[in-house]
């Protein structure tokens, strides 16, 4: 038996210990916010927060979660009462097809909980693992900036570059 604490509620599930957390969330707990994208940890559509850290739930076996708390986008608000990031994503119309958005919001949420006033550079570096195939990254960044109270970068200023890994 596997015990998971998800959005503050303890669940005991009779599932294979090597089941990815994403499958348990979607198939057993019917929390359909997190999505299956690539299944390889390359796109971020499955991102949830585990013990305060953004985590690819498609790569996380339930056996490895242990007592760490899992939070999904369902914990941030509802359609009637959206949380600050959810409201900002709506206001900035940051979703096109919407498939990546739950992961985007959870990754941003993890950043703002740890660092409520990130710099533009910190924001972009932090959001880098999550991809949006519709190309709404600029609106996604604008939505997170509005919650973080971060000014939009001056169009005339030097571009912010991020170097990935090198």
């Amino acid at each position, binding site marked *: 038996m596997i015990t998971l604490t998800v959005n503050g509620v303890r669940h005991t599930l009779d599932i294979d*210990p*090597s*089941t*990815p957390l994403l499958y348990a969330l979607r198939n057993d707990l019917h929390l359909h916010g997190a999505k299956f994208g690539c*299944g*390889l*940890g*390359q796109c971020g559509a499955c991102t949830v927060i*585990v013990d305060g*850290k953004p*985590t*690819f739930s498609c*790569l*996380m*076996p*339930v*056996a*490895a979660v242990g007592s760490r708390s899992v939070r999904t986008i369902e914990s941030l608000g509802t359609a009637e009462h959206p949380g600050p990031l959810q409201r900002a994503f709506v206001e900035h119309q940051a979703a096109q097809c919407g498939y990546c958005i739950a992961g985007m919001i959870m990754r941003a949420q993890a950043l703002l909980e740890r660092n409520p006033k990130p710099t533009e*550079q910190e924001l972009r*570096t932090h959001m*880098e*693992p999550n991809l949006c195939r519709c190309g709404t990254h600029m609106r996604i960044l604008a939505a997170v900036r509005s919650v973080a109270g971060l000014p939009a970068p001056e169009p005339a200023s030097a571009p912010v*570059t*991020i*170097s*990935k*890994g*090198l």
Partner: protein
Amino acid sequence: MKHKRLWFGAAGIAVAGIAVAIGIMVRPSIAPIDPPAPASFDPQLVRAGARVVALGDCIVCHTAKDGKPFAGGLPLATPFGTIYATNITPDAETGIGRWSRDAFARALRTGIGRNGQPLYPAFPYIHFTRMSDDDIAAAYAYLMTREPVHATAPANDLIFPLNFRPLVAFWNVLFLREGAYQPDPSQSAQWNRGRMLVDGLGHCASCHSPLNAIGGEQRGRAFDGGIVDGWEAPPLNALGQAAQPWTQAQLVTYLRTGRASEHGAAAGPMLPVTRDLATVPVEDVEAIAAYILSIQKPATARAAANPLQRAATTPAAQRGATLFQASCAQCHGPAAPMQSIGERPTLSFSTAVNADTPRNAIQMMFNGIGWHGEDTLNYMPSFIDQYDDTQIADLAAYVRETYTDRPAWSGVDAMAAKLRKEDTAR
């Protein structure tokens, strides 16, 4: 009377010693110049310099994370404290803009800065001293035509007494043998080129050799393997001992692309080296590979191994199997498309999984290989936040036991704890 004479003798020796010490510690400064105009350099020479600078991997150490190219500031953790790479852009105040070509050549050949102060030997002048005059002139032309960046590296944080720079002079007496290589006429031109690139410009031994207590490469143990930035730089003279013995073709492909289908992907500090080598002519990399294959220690070659995949038997490996199934099998499992069409090696052939210590396997699981821009060839997610040290040890036990016939590693969780601390601080 006799005592007095002895005393005089001792004093005389001391005075002579101090004179010699001052003699080797004090070097004249070389007069500053006005930064030369970029247009004053022959474009052909600048192009040749791009190749030299890429082969020397200058940008790897002289660029900070998210920093401007060649502007320095990258911290280098040594057992003696942290030193910061310097700014080698042609900025007049903070870079090498006021360095003449002679000052630049003296730094590469003898490790003395323009102002006459010794540079710390993290700068591999003991290898660069083998460079030809032409290569030094080309590298100078290339660096002096880069964009000047005004940036001062943080002050070094070294332990006493090494924070007293002139002491490096004594280190140089022990480890610096000045001068360019003369070609060995009994060897081919390719071999001679390869030796210059490996022992000189490319300074491979700086990372791939064990260091002694004062940070010098141990004599007679060149290419026996070393440790850099928490990663093992594997021995370069035991390539026949790999699960699949290295070949010239595999080595060239690895060095130019960061991936070898029979060994694995470059990661850690080797990854940026392969990005540099991707930009140089293939004959340079072929020469490097040919020379490296010529310096192999005699050893009985292992028969090429077949891909293994056994069932896990120990409890640790069985726990690891569960984790592997969810986190790793999508790419590394036998049925993964990456295995069948991606030319990725099975873990049976992986250098890290077959290594004597679990160091690189742990680092790989901790850090993965990040995206690195448009030339990304290999990617692996980082698992440092996902798995604790015991789980990392279970995964290591699983891959070691089921994919290789090598003896089990011990102390994996302790090493994971140590590396986690170092990686997090880095």
